[in-house]
C-alpha cells in the first residue's frame, strides 16, 4: 500500500498521471475521520491531502475563506472565530459515530457535502462552497467557481464535486462563503411531545417569521427519559429575547418551553449534529432525507418492521437519523421511503454490509446513466475511489 503525500498541485498532478492506465486506483485521504462513508472502495494506493495545508485567502469583510484541501477544519474554524465569523452550515464531526481518530480536513467537508443542524435554514456545505480546484482523473488541474459569492459562470462543477466523495477528482483547494457568528444563542426546549407533535411544532416554528436556525426532535430515551423538541435562536440578544417570547406564545399549545443557554444548549446541539446518541454501539446507522412531515411516517413504518430501531429528527423533521440492529433488513428502510419520496443513506455499518447493500439511494435509470457519464467525463480510467458511491462509480 503506497501513500502519496504531494505538497504541491504539480506533484499531485504527477501522482495522478503516474497511475493512469496502470490499473492501480487511488483512494483519497484527508484526515481519515470519515473514511467509513460510502461503499468500501478498493484501491491499491492512497493520495493524501496532508501535504496541502494552510489558509490561502481570508477576507473577513468579503465573507470568504479559501484553504488547501488538507487544512484541518479546526484551524479554519479558529481562524474564522478570531474575526467573529463561522462556516454557515455547522459541519458534522463523524469521529464519535465512527469511533475514528485524526483531524477532519476542510477538503472532506467539500468532497462529502458535510452539513449539520443549521442546514435547514442556512443551506448545506454545497450552498456555501463557492470555488474548488481539483485534479481530475486525466491528471489535469481544473478550477470551477471562484472567490466571489455569485460564481456560476458556465456549468457549476463546484456543485457536482461537492458530495462526490472523491470519485471525480482530488481536491487541492476549496473556497467557502462565511457568515458572522451570532452575538447570542439560546435554545427553547419542549418536553414530552410525540414525534408527530414535535415535528408539527418544528414546522410551525420554521414557518414563522422568527427564524429558528436549527430545529430538532429527540424521542424519549435518547437524551433522558422525556422526548425533547428543540429550537435554536441565533441573533442579537434583544432579538433573541423578543423572538423567544413570540415563539412561546405561538406554540403555546405545546406547553411552556425551557430556555437553555451556554454549554447545556451547545452540548445538546453537538449531540444532534454528530448523532452521538448512536456512538459506541454496533447498530447500523442510516440518514433519511425527506419532507419534514413525512419524517415521523417513515420512522414509525420502519419501527414497525424493525423492532429495536431508534431514531431522532433534525432539520425540522426532514432528516431522520435511524439506528437499527445491524442484522436488520436494509430493504425495510427503502421500502418505507418508497411511497413518501426522499432518499436514504447507510452511514455506518461493517464493510461487508456496506459492500452488499446500496449505501446511496439507487437512481432512476436515465440518472444512473448520466451519473456514469459524469464519472467518465472526469475520470475516464476509473482511478479515484472506484465503487465508493455506486458499483463502478
Amino acid at each position, binding site marked *: 500500500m503506497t501513500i502519496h503525500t504531494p505538497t504541491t498541485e504539480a506533484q499531485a498532478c504527477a501522482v495522478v498521471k503516474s497511475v493512469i492506465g496502470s490499473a492501480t486506483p487511488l483512494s483519497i485521504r484527508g484526515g481519515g475521520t470519515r473514511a467509513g462513508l460510502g461503499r468500501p472502495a478498493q484501491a491499491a494506493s492512497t493520495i493524501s491531502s496532508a501535504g496541502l495545508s494552510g489558509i490561502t485567502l481570508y477576507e*473577513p*469583510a*468579503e*465573507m470568504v475563506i479559501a484553504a488547501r484541501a488538507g487544512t484541518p477544519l479546526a484551524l479554519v474554524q479558529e481562524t474564522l472565530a478570531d474575526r467573529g465569523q463561522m462556516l454557515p452550515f455547522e459541519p458534522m464531526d463523524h469521529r464519535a459515530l465512527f469511533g475514528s481518530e485524526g483531524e477532519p480536513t476542510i477538503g472532506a467537508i467539500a468532497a462529502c*457535502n458535510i452539513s449539520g443542524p443549521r*442546514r435547514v435554514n442556512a*443551506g*448545506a456545505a454545497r450552498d456555501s462552497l463557492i470555488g474548488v480546484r481539483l485534479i481530475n482523473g486525466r491528471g489535469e*488541474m*481544473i*478550477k*470551477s467557481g*471562484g*472567490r*466571489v*459569492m*455569485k*460564481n*456560476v*459562470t*458556465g*456549468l*457549476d*462543477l463546484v*456543485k*457536482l464535486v*461537492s*458530495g*462526490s466523495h472523491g470519485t*471525480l477528482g482530488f481536491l487541492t483547494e476549496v473556497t467557502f462563503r462565511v*457568515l*458572522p*457568528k451570532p452575538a447570542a444563542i439560546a435554545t427553547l426546549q419542549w418536553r414530552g411531545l410525540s414525534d408527530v407533535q414535535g415535528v408539527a411544532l418544528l*414546522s410551525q416554528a*420554521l*414557518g*414563522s*417569521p422568527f427564524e429558528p436556525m436549527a430545529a430538532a426532535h429527540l424521542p424519549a430515551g435518547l437524551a433522558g427519559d422525556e422526548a425533547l423538541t428543540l429550537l435554536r435562536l441565533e441573533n*442579537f440578544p*434583544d432579538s433573541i429575547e423578543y423572538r423567544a417570547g413570540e415563539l412561546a406564545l405561538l406554540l403555546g399549545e405545546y406547553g411552556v418551553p425551557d430556555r437553555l443557554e451556554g454549554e447545556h444548549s451547545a452540548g445538546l446541539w453537538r449531540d444532534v449534529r454528530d448523532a452521538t446518541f448512536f456512538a459506541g454501539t454496533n447498530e447500523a446507522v442510516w440518514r433519511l*432525507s*425527506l*419532507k419534514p*412531515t413525512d419524517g415521523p411516517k417513515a420512522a414509525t413504518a420502519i419501527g414497525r418492521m424493525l423492532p429495536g430501531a431508534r431514531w431522532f429528527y433534525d432539520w425540522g423533521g*426532514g*432528516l431522520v437519523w435511524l439506528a437499527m440492529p445491524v442484522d436488520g433488513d436494509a430493504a425495510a428502510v427503502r421500502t418505507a421511503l418508497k411511497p413518501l*419520496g*426522499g*432518499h436514504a*443513506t447507510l452511514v455506518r455499518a461493517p464493510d461487508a454490509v456496506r459492500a452488499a447493500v446500496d449505501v446511496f*439511494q439507487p437512481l*432512476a435509470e*436515465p*440518472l444512473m446513466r*448520466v*451519473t456514469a*457519464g*459524469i464519472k467518465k*467525463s*472526469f475520470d475516464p480510467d476509473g482511478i479515484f475511489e472506484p465503487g465508493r458511491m455506486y458499483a463502478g462509480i
Partner: protein
Amino acid sequence: MSAIAFPTPDAGILARREQILAGLSALVSPGALITSDDERRPYETDALTAYRRMPLAVVLPSTTEEVAAVLRYCGDQGVPVIPRGSGTSLSGGAIPQEDAVVIGVSKMSRILEIDYANRVARVQAGVTNLAVTGAVSAEGFFYAPDPSSQLACSIGGNIGMNSGGAHCLKYGVTTNNVLGVKMVMLDGSIVEIGGGHLDSPGYDLLGLMNGSEGQLGIITEATVRILRSAEGARPVLFGFPTSEQAGAAVAAIIGAGIIPVAMEFMDKPAIEICEAFAKAGYPMDCGALLIIEVEGSDDEMDAQLARIVAIAREHGVTTVKESKSAMEAAAIWKGRKSAFGATGRIADYICMDGTIPTGQLPYVLKRMDEIVKGYGLRVANVFHAGDGNLHPLILYNCNDPVEAQKAEDAGMDILKLCVEVGGCLTGEHGVGIEKRDLMTFQFNPEDLAQQMRVRAVFDERWLLNPAKVFPLEGRVAA
C-alpha cells in the same frame, strides 16, 4: 452590432423545414406549433435585442409529455433546440438560430402544489417568478430570489440562468432555493431530480441544472423553497459624498456582523436616472447611494438600523432617509428595480453583469469610468453591493453603428477587468452569447474542456442551445 458570431445554419435542416413542421404538428395540440413569420418574430430575440435570428419554428407545449415528444423528435432529426421561458435573458441565452426549433414553456404556467408545513411549492416551469410569491403571500410566505424582471421572467428561465436579485444577500440565489426539478432529456426521457427533501443522493445534478442555460434538458416543473416573510421590512437610503465611502461602509457593516437583507449601490448617474423616473426621493446631492433594507419587528429594525447608521456616520454619510410608509418603501424599490427601464428612456444601453471581490470596488469603479470615457461614452452603475455583483449600464446610441460597437467593446473590457481583479464574468445574467467568447479569459482550456465533457453527457451532438456559453471553436464531445 455584429461582433458575436452565430453558427452557419445547417442547409440540410433548412431544406427539410416543411417535413420537420409536419412531423412536429403531429406531436402537439393544434395552436402549439407556430410557423408563420409574424408569429415567430417575437421569438427572434430576447432582452439582448441587438441580436436576432428567425427560428425554424416555435413550439409551445402544454404538458411535460408534449415537451418529451418534441424533444425526442428533434433529437432524432438532429435539429437544434432552444429552450425558452419568457425571453428576458440579457445575455442572449434564449436567442434562436435559423435551423433551430424554439421550445417555450410559457403555456405551462400552473402552480401545482403549495405545502406550507414543509415550506415548498411545486410549480410548472413557465410560472413567472412573481406569481410564485403571489400565490403564497396571503399566508405570509414568499419565494426569495427576486430578479428585477420578476413580473415577466419564468422559474424555468431563472433556473437556466441561476438568477439573483436584490434580496439574495441574505436568502441566496436560485440554486440555493430550488429543491427539485422535473426535466426532459434530449432523448425524451422524463426524469425527476430532488423533490420536497433536502440534498440529493449521488452527484448533485440539481446543482448542475442551475445555471446550465438550457444546454442539458428542458425543465418542465420545479419544487422551490418558500419562506415566511419577516414581520416587517424597511428600506433606508444612505447618501455618501463618494463611492469609496459607500463601499467602505458596506465592508464595515458586514465586518460588524450585520447582514442586512439587501444592500444596493447606485452611483450619481444612476441616481439621477432612477429619480427622474420613479420620484423615490433619492438624495440628489451625493456621489453614491446605498439602499439598505432591514427586516424584523419594529423594535428589531430600529435596533439594527441604529447599528447601521452609526457605522455609516463613521464613513461620512450625509443623508439618511428612512421610508416612513409602505408607499415610500415601494417607491424606493421601484426606483432601483426599474433602473434598467429608466435608463432605457434616456438612451440605449447595454447592461453588463460581472462580479468582483467587494474590496476591489473603489478601484473597479475608477477603472470602469476610465474605460468607458476612453470610448467616449457614459456609464451608470447599479450594483448588489453586499455580494460584489456589478451592473454597469453603458449608454450609447444604437442607431450609430460605430458607437454601438464601442459600447460593446467597453463592456467586454469591463468584464475582463472583473476577472482580472478576482471576480467572474457573470453574477446572475448568465453567459449566453454575450460573454461566450470571453470564457477563455476566465477559464483555461482544461477547465473549459471539463465543463464541455459534462455538457456532452447530456447532449453529445450539441443540439441543445448550441451557440451559447462555450466558444464556437474547439468544442469537445464526450
